[in-house]
Each structure stands twice: as structure tokens, then as C-alpha cells.
């Protein structure tokens, strides 16, 4: 659906995007992840035809955004970083204007608009001036704008910024639903969001793609050990000694006493060894009850930090 070849963008001497390649399949939800200034917005602005790439191509459904901009733009709904709203229009007027410039015609034009307003829940503010709306409503009006005309491709730059937690969940669910019959690209620097919504994640840093996979594969592939966080009641020396006797333990770290009469530990083992059962039996034998056992898988945060800092070290 979307194909990007060797996309490069220079701002003067500054290289904002460096030969970026990726494809997005139909109905896929792709997440762009990266620190501020990594090139997420630049990529999106090029894909939507707002700015032009210095080099490379961006194809939307096989149509080059530079060569046939009007054809390509018809298929895209774009929610930029700051929603492009006209403050002195009412929500109704605004969406009417957007329908006009997106050339939504015919009888279902009004129906389409009503459906979108229901979807993002802005029906109750339809008659109000956009400048008087709260940030959350503005963001949702911006989202409605992107949905007008039912475009095949939805590109959203940080769609949940400025929303409260309840709205964030609503919008995430909405994006998931939209992903069923739209191709969605969204960017974020909020990692749980990306892992909650996206089927595939592209991590980009300093204008380059540093990782691209499903959130699950990313967290599995990059972890080089499995960690457990434990809280065990009993005497420290006894516990440490018992644990060290278990096979496959690489590292043992005591976190000290958090609860009287117990100690907190972090146990590291080889990734392919499950030490939870041997651990239980060992503790049971030593009659030290395990009060808490929590797996410390690599979160997307860790991966993100690792990938973006590794990049730095390589250079």
C-alpha cells in the first residue's frame, strides 16, 4: 500500500532523513517510534506531500506522491502534529470545508460526516467555535478531519497527545478499529501506545531506521537474558546460598530489605532456561516462602533506549 524507497531529506546541510526504506501492507497498523527530532514528522510530511524529499520516492498504492500529487493525496487522511484547525470556524463548518477540499460529493457526504462525528465523539460540540474547544476536543476534530472522505491510508502524527487517559484509550481502540479497513501509520514517543496499537514498529533515530519488527519480536530478539524480580521471606544468607545452587543462574543481585523479614532479589538466567520451577523447589526445601515473583521482560522502553544508544556507540 505504501512503499518508500531511499527517502532522503536535507534541510540545508542537516540530514533529517537518510535513505529510509520501508513498506506498509494493506490493513496494517505501523508505528513509528523515535526520540524527538528523529525524523518521524519529516517522513510523514513527505508521505502526505506536504514537503518534498531531497531524494527517493514515496508511493501510495503505486502512485508517486510527487508525480501525481492529487491522485495520491486523495487516498490519504493526515493528522499532523498540531491539528490544522481554523479557530474561527465551528466544528460543522470546518468539517464541511474539509469535505469540500477533499472533494467528497454525493448523497452520502452528510451521512459520512455524521458517522465520523459519532466515531470520534464530537457531536456535542458541533456548533461551537473550534478556538473555544479544549485540547482533547481539538485533537479529535483533527482526527475527524483526517477521516473525512474515508481515505485508504491514515497517517497520524502523535494522535493521542493532549488527551486524558480515558480519551487515550478511546482513541487507541478507535485506531485499532480503523486498522481493520485502513492502512494506518502513526508516530509516537509514548512506547506503551505503540505496543498496544501497532502490529509492526519501526524505530527511527537520527533519520535512520534502526529496528523494524513486531513489538513482541523486538522485545524477544533483543533480550540476552531473562530476569526475575523476587521477594522471599527468610534469612538473607540462607536464601542466597540456596539460589546459587540452582543450575543456569547467571547473576544474582540483592536489592535489600523492602518488607521486614524479607529480601528482594533480581535473578538473571539464560534466556532459554526457565528457572521458576527449580527456584520454587529450592525455596520450598529451604522453607523460605516466595512472596512475589515477577518477570522482568524487556519492555519497549528498554529496547528503545538500547537501540537508540547502541546506534550512538557504533558511530
Amino acid at each position, binding site marked *: 500500500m505504501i512503499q518508500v524507497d531511499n527517502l532522503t531529506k536535507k534541510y540545508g546541510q542537516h540530514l533529517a532523513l537518510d535513505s529510509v526504506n520501508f513498506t506498509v501492507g494493506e490493513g496494517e497498523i505501523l508505528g513509528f517510534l523515535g526520540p524527538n527530532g528523529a525524523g518521524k514528522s519529516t517522513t510523514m510530511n513527505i508521505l502526505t506531500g*506536504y514537503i518534498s524529499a531531497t531524494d527517493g520516492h514515496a508511493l501510495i498504492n503505486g502512485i508517486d506522491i510527487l508525480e501525481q500529487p492529487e491522485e495520491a*493525496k486523495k487516498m*490519504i487522511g493526515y493528522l499532523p502534529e498540531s491539528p*490544522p*484547525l*481554523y*479557530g474561527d*470556524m465551528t466544528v460543522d463548518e470546518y468539517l464541511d*470545508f474539509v469535505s469540500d477540499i*477533499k472533494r467528497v460529493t454525493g448523497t452520502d457526504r452528510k451521512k459520512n460526516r455524521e458517522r465520523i462525528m459519532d466515531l470520534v465523539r464530537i457531536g456535542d460540540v458541533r456548533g461551537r467555535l473550534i478556538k473555544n474547544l479544549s485540547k482533547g476536543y481539538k485533537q479529535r476534530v483533527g482526527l475527524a478531519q483526517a477521516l473525512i472522505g474515508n481515505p485508504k491510508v491514515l497517517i497520524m502524527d502523535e494522535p493521542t497527545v493532549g488527551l486524558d487517559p480515558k480519551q487515550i484509550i478511546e482513541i487507541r481502540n478507535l485506531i485499532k478499529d480503523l486498522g481493520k479497513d485502513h492502512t494506518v501509520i502513526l508516530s509516537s514517543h509514548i512506547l506503551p501506545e505503540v505496543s498496544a496499537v501497532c502490529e509492526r514498529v519501526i524505530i527511527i533515530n537520527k533519520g535512520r531506521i534502526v529496528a523494524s519488527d513486531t513489538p513482541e519480536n523486538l522485545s524477544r530478539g533483543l533480550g540476552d537474558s531473562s530476569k526475575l524480580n523476587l521477594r522471599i521471606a527468610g534469612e538473607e544468607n540462607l536464601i542466597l546460598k540456596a539460589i546459587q545452587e540452582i543450575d543456569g543462574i547467571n547473576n544474582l543481585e540483592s536489592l535489600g530489605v523492602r518488607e521486614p523479614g524479607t529480601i528482594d532479589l533480581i535473578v538473571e538466567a539464560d534466556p532459554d532456561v526457565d528457572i521458576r520451577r527449580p527456584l520454587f523447589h529450592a525455596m520450598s526445601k529451604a522453607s523460605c516462602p516466595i512472596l512475589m515473583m515477577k518477570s522482568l521482560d524487556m519492555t519497549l522502553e528498554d529496547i528503545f533506549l538500547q537501540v537508540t544508544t547502541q546506534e550512538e556507540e557504533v558511530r
Partner: protein
Amino acid sequence: MVAIIKKEFLTYFKSMTGYVFMASLLFFVGLFFVTNNLLILNPQYSGVLSSSTFVFLLIVPVLTMRLMAEETRQKTDQLLLTSPVSLGRIVMGKYLGAVSVFLITLAITFIYPLILSTMGTIFWGEIIGGYIGFFLLGSALIAVGLFVSSLTDNQVIAAVATFTVLLVLWLMDAIIGSLPADQTSGLIFALILVAAIAFVFYSATRNLFVSGGVLLIGILAVAAGFIIKPSLYNGFIGRVFGWLALHSHYQDFAMGIFSLTPIVYYITFSTVFLYLTVRMLEKKRWS
């Protein structure tokens, strides 16, 4: 495009801008109507319009300052530029939106000649010709304002810059009078012009070869012109700047002469500035 015209037109009347523009134009035209016609019982109406042309200096910036600058500042240009609408249509839509406000205001002032006609015989041809000229002059200045507005994202800067440009255009006749008119300075000016064109070529294409060729051909053409007909360069500077003397082209209309030349001139002038605005937007995408 119609959507953008409609949006621009309605936006003018959601803030004070549209009302300020209309009120100022109506006030001055009305004032000159009272002083030139009513008080001295004079049936010559075209003088009212030509006296009112100075009002453009003040009200055209009000009308045009917002057009592109505010879109850039609010980042709503992202909506326009990512919609399936070409740049040309966006610019044209904005231009016609502003022009329609002007046209409606002008239509209201048509009451004055109607009032005059109840009191005696008036020359309709002259009045309609005057209106066409006034409209074309205003529209050309709006095109200039639109272009200036696309250069900045600050309305105030756009307004001040537009005012300055319009003032220079207004004073152009006086400026031309003080420019040197001899052959040598004409020749030098022609060469400077050629160099400037070559430079524009270079900055647009970054191709040293093509722009060098343009420079060479230009110099040869200027030299050939000088050898074949040196008198070509008499008052050359004045003639070039004369192209920018918008207000002097209005004289025909003011005197009641209806000729095609100034009409074509004004339309060309507007088109050039609309084209420059499109180029400016295009350039922003590439930088």
C-alpha cells in the same frame, strides 16, 4: 477552489478584517462623492474613484496580510497542501476570496452614480470604465499583497511590508523621474538585469552551465541591441520601472478613456504575482 473562495470570504466577516476593509473604502469613496459631486454640484463621477485610489495603500494590506501568513503560522497550510487541490487552485482561491470582498464593496458604492443620475445626465460609459479600472487596479494590488503574505508567517510584518511595497509602487512615477535616462546607464542597467536573471536561474536550478549560458546569451543580446540601435537604451531604466507604475496606467480610466492596454496590463500584473506566490509555496516545500 470554490471551497477556498467561500472559506476566505466567510473568514473575513468572522473577524473585524472584512468590516474594516469595507468601512474604510465606503467611507473614503463616500467622502469624495460628497466633496467632489454633491457639495459643488459636479456631475463628473470618475474623479471620485481616482481620488480614492490612495485608500488602497491602507486597506489592501488589511485585506491580504492574513491570507498566507496566518495559514503558515497556524500550520493549517498542512491541511491545504495535503489535500487533493493543486497549489495554483489554492492561491487562486485565496486571491478570488479577497477580490470578492473588494468587488462587493465596490458594488455598494455604485449607489453614488445612481444618486447622481437622478439629478441630471451622466455619462454611464465613463463611469463603468472608471469602475473597471478601479477594480483592476485594486485586484492587482491584492495580488501583490497576497505574494508578500506568502513570504512570512507574521501578519503584522506582512501588512507593513505590503504597505511599503504599495507605497513604492504608488510613488513609482516620481521615482522614475529622478532616475538617470542616458544611454550608458541604460546599458549598465540592462547588464545588471541580465546578471540578476542569471543569478535567479542559478539559485533555482543550481546548474552552473545553464545559468552561465543564460548570462552569456543575455550579454550578447544586450551588446547586439546596443550596436544595432543604441537609442534603445535611452531612458531604459525608466521604461523597466515604468512597468511597475501601476497607478499611472490608471490615468486612462480616470480621464474616461477606455482602452484595452491597461486592462491587459493589470491582468498580466496580477497573474505574475499569483504565479510568484505559487512558486514561493513550491519553494517552501523543497527547502
